[in-house]
Each structure stands twice: as structure tokens, then as C-alpha cells.
């Protein structure tokens, strides 16, 4: 039961990251003072979501996932672990650093983002790839969950 709770939290923090990075992207397309304030908090929430998802998911992965891994590898969808999970667990490590960079740029530049097109484009590129990355993590998480379910029969 604790495992399910951790997985729900892991996914919820990931969804928070997906929504807030997408939100930051939209706010930064044509920034105003108000939109930049919202983008700052969205980037902060995205960073928090990414880090919390990392901690909770990491704890689950290290302590409880080995049982599921054995099940998946012996089931009809072994690629659910051997390709999807292996790629997910390593690609996830990149996310927090991208999120930290976005957070720093948005908070450091602040209202300059209204006139500094260069930093604005950087923020847009980072928030876009973070939102896409978060949704890819959510999809791959769903595939791993289904791989375990099909292994149970």
C-alpha cells in the first residue's frame, strides 16, 4: 500500500511539473510585469515538482521497485523494464538541472525578460523541453505500470 502511495505522489509531482512548466512557457511568450510574476511562481512550482518527484520516485525505485522489476522481466512485456524503465530512470536525472537553470533565469532576469529577447528565448526553450520531458516521463511511467499489470495476468 505504501508503494502505491509513493507512486501516486511521484506521478502527482510530475503532473505538477508538467502543468507549471507549460504555464511558465505561456506566460513568457509575451511577458508583462504580471505575467512575469506568474512565470516566476510557475517555474518555482515546476522545480519543486521535479525535485519532489525525483526524491519520492527515487525512494520507490530503490526500495520497492525491485519486486516489480523481477515481475516485469519475467512477464509478457519485459521491454517495459529493459527499455522503458532503464531509459526513464536515467533521463529523469537531467530534469532537475534543466529546471534549476530555468528557475534561475526567470528569477534573476525578472522584468528584464520583457525587453531581453535573448533570455526570454532561453526561458521559452527550457520551459518547453521541460514540459515535453515531464509528459514523456508520465507516459513512460504508465507503460511501466501496465507492464507490471500484464505480468500479473
Amino acid at each position, binding site marked *: 500500500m505504501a508503494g502505491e502511495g509513493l507512486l501516486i505522489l511521484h506521478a502527482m509531482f510530475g503532473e505538477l511539473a508538467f502543468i507549471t512548466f507549460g504555464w511558465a512557457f505561456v506566460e513568457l511568450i509575451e511577458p508583462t510585469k504580471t505575467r512575469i510574476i506568474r512565470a516566476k511562481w510557475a517555474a518555482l512550482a515546476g522545480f519543486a515538482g521535479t525535485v519532489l518527484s525525483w526524491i519520492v520516485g527515487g525512494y520507490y525505485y530503490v526500495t520497492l521497485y525491485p519486486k516489480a522489476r523481477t515481475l516485469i522481466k519475467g512477464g509478457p512485456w519485459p*521491454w517495459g523494464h529493459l527499455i522503458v524503465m532503464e531509459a526513464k530512470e536515467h533521463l529523469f*536525472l537531467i530534469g532537475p538541472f534543466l529546471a534549476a537553470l530555468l528557475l*534561475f533565469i526567470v528569477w534573476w532576469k525578472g522584468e528584464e525578460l520583457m525587453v531581453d529577447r*535573448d533570455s526570454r528565448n532561453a526561458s521559452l526553450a527550457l520551459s518547453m523541453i521541460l514540459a515535453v520531458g515531464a509528459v514523456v516521463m508520465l507516459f513512460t511511467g504508465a507503460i511501466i505500470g501496465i507492464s507490471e499489470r500484464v505480468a500479473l495476468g
Partner: protein
Amino acid sequence: MRGMASVKPKRSLEAPLGVATLVTTVAITIMTLGSELYPPLKAWLATTFGHHWVGKGVISIVLFLVVAVVSYPALTRSERSMAAWSYRLVAVVVLATVTIVAFFTYEFFFG
């Protein structure tokens, strides 16, 4: 209304974080492939940090901080284009994603 001269009054303090993120992304890719191709590395990560994945995470955090601090004096001397850095970074992240997915797909079918 700000004049164009005041558009970028600050030094590019985000540049060291940009290069640190880029180096860390490359390092994560190398550690991922390296630990699969060279089992003693995976074993060392597991024994040193309790789990190979935890080891990769800890090394990534330390590397990120070290590169940010070490590159700070050089990268904050003059204005730098963060958009150019970010586009490079996005390209590296996409390349890392393709490399890691292709590697584990190859391992699954032919490894």
C-alpha cells in the same frame, strides 16, 4: 521605459549554470552507457552509494555545482547569449535521449 543600453545591465550569472547543466547532461549519458558497458563501474557505484542510480544522481549534483563554481569567473566576464546556450542544451538533451533510448533498445534486441 528602459533604454536599449540598460537591457542587459547585469553580468550573465546564468551562463555558469547553463554550462554546468550541459556538462551534467553529457556526464549522465556517459555514466549511463559506461555503467552498462563496463560492469565494474556499475558495481563501484552500487557499493559506494548503495545503488548505482543513487550514485549517478549524487555525482551529477556534485558535478553541476563544481562546474558552476569553476566556470563562474570565466563565464561572467562578459555578456553571453543564453538563447544560444539553451538551444545547444536542448539539442544535447534530445541527443542524450535518442542515445540512451537507442542503447537500451539495442541491448534488448541484440545485447
